[in-house]
């Protein structure tokens, strides 16, 4: 695999924490240049100049970390363009600083709690799409689920410290407790609304990005 392919693959592991989709699928990677010496420059672009700085920071920092881990990469420069806090974010990310250093006095801490909140939402939303794939969801084990949503569920559970072994209960609430048979109806509704929220936001972001950068990818996607 070429270095460039490795870098792109690494960028594909960076998720928008709010939308739970890879930044490469969302079109947020505007440019990725890989020099012969292994110097990498990544331009990130977002749907609006006012997109939330906290999520923007996470994506920029995660992109820098992911690319930096690719063997053969010597130096990584990530630049968030056309954003009202771009300067603060770019400076902090380049220095390897945390979010609170980028915005002194405007935060109460780092972004761990925020990221976790959205990981829990993403887990619930993903599970909503898997409920129909097994005959008795309340008895199903994680190992019985398959496909991209199942893979992502497992990754989210690992990150959240929720049992992700094959024989663990397949469906859990955001806090990790198993969904009982009497809770299934409500869980399904909650999960489908949460999934719709993420999908709608993702759709709106794609549309705004396309208008902003004059791309032509505005086809309706299957939902």
């Amino acid at each position, binding site marked *: 695999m070429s270095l460039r392919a490795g870098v792109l693959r690494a960028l594909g592991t960076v998720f928008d924490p*709010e939308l739970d989709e890879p930044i490469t699928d969302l079109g947020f990677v505007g440019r990725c240049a890989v020099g012969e010496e292994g110097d990498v420059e990544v331009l990130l672009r977002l749907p609006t*100049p006012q997109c*939330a700085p*906290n999520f923007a920071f996470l994506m920029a920092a995660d992109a820098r970390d992911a690319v930096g881990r690719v063997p053969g990469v010597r130096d990584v420069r990530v630049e968030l363009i056309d954003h009202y806090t771009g300067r603060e974010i770019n400076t902090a990310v380049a220095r390897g600083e945390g*979010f*609170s250093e980028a915005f002194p006095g405007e935060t109460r801490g780092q972004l761990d709690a925020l990221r976790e909140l959205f990981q829990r939402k993403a887990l619930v939303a993903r599970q909503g799409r898997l409920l129909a794939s097994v005959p008795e969801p309340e008895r199903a084990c994680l190992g019985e689920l398959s496909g991209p949503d199942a893979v992502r569920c497992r990754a989210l559970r690992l990150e959240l410290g929720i049992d992700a072994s094959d024989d663990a209960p397949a469906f859990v609430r955001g806090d990790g407790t198993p969904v009982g048979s009497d809770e299934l109806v409500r869980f399904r509704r909650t999960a489908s609304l949460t999934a719709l*929220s993420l999908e709608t936001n993702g759709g709106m972001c794609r549309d*705004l990005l396309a*208008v902003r950068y004059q791309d032509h990818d505005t086809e309706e996607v299957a939902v």
Partner: protein
Amino acid sequence: MYEKDGKQYYIFDGHLHFWDASPENWKPGAEEYAKGWIECFHAYHGLGPADTQWSLEKFQKYSADDFERDVFVNAGTDCGVLQSTYLREWYTDGFNDFARNVTLLERFPGKLIVNGRFDPREGQASMEQLEADHEKYGLKGVKLYTAEWYQGSRGWKMTDDAAKPFFDKLVELGIRNVHIHKGPTIWPLDKDAFDITDVDHVATDYNGELNFIVEHVGLPRIEDFCFMATQEPNVYAGLAVVLGGLMHARPNFFNKVMGELLFWVGEDKILYGSDYGIWEPKWQIDGLLEWEMPDRPEYSDYPRLDEDGKRKILGLNGAKLYGVEVPEALRGPVPAEAPASPESAVGVAG
């Protein structure tokens, strides 16, 4: 009144703007933000049908004549609410402030309501302005924009201690309707910028006294909004952006979002708002009247919206919140549970 297929509908537009975002109004030193803001709005504008789109130049500043044609002539709006958005850190005279909105009141008497505003960070000055505006114009509502920048602060929350005297003042003055817009810059920056839990708290505290209309149905936090609205009797859904941003650009999402709103919030608590000038109202009204939940398995869980429901959303719900009288002929059938009165009998016969 809007007429379609021989039927007449009362139109109450809960969300109108009359802004000036032309370069002449960009505040020196903040041009980048003023320009970015209106270009972002223009990108949203691009989600509407191609034949309704304006150039950026016209979009930056449209005229009272444009307003009259688009809102009243083409869309048949009977009554509309102008929502103020200040953004004085970016726009010299404000983006769309109370004073600018009031100029339209004089031109279209009886057809428009202008909502006031307050910002607890401005303290006593904001309180006095609210009282003065109320005395002069008899406010029925306010628009709160909690993401506004102010002297280094990037926003406030409705649960802040400083906000309570303002809500108490609204109750005292009989200003019952509070429209809330959430934007992406709430302090502290490491929290969810669109978090709506402050609405939840305040709605509970002022149940029976104030109505809270969450504009854009909490998008992008529609799930949090629905879980809250289903529990709070005085929380309403403002449809602005749902119609304009999704109906044309993402019809499948529109079907589902409407389905969820009808399920969790219900047709009695959903209010039409065009968000003009982001989008022209006519295609939005027309589209909602034509819209039906498709008869497909993935939509089988959702309630349906019939003609009476559309009448409520497009006009009757908003008129009720604002105490605006709707002509008998446009009220639709009397609900079965409501006792028939001599007045409604006249309306039915007429």
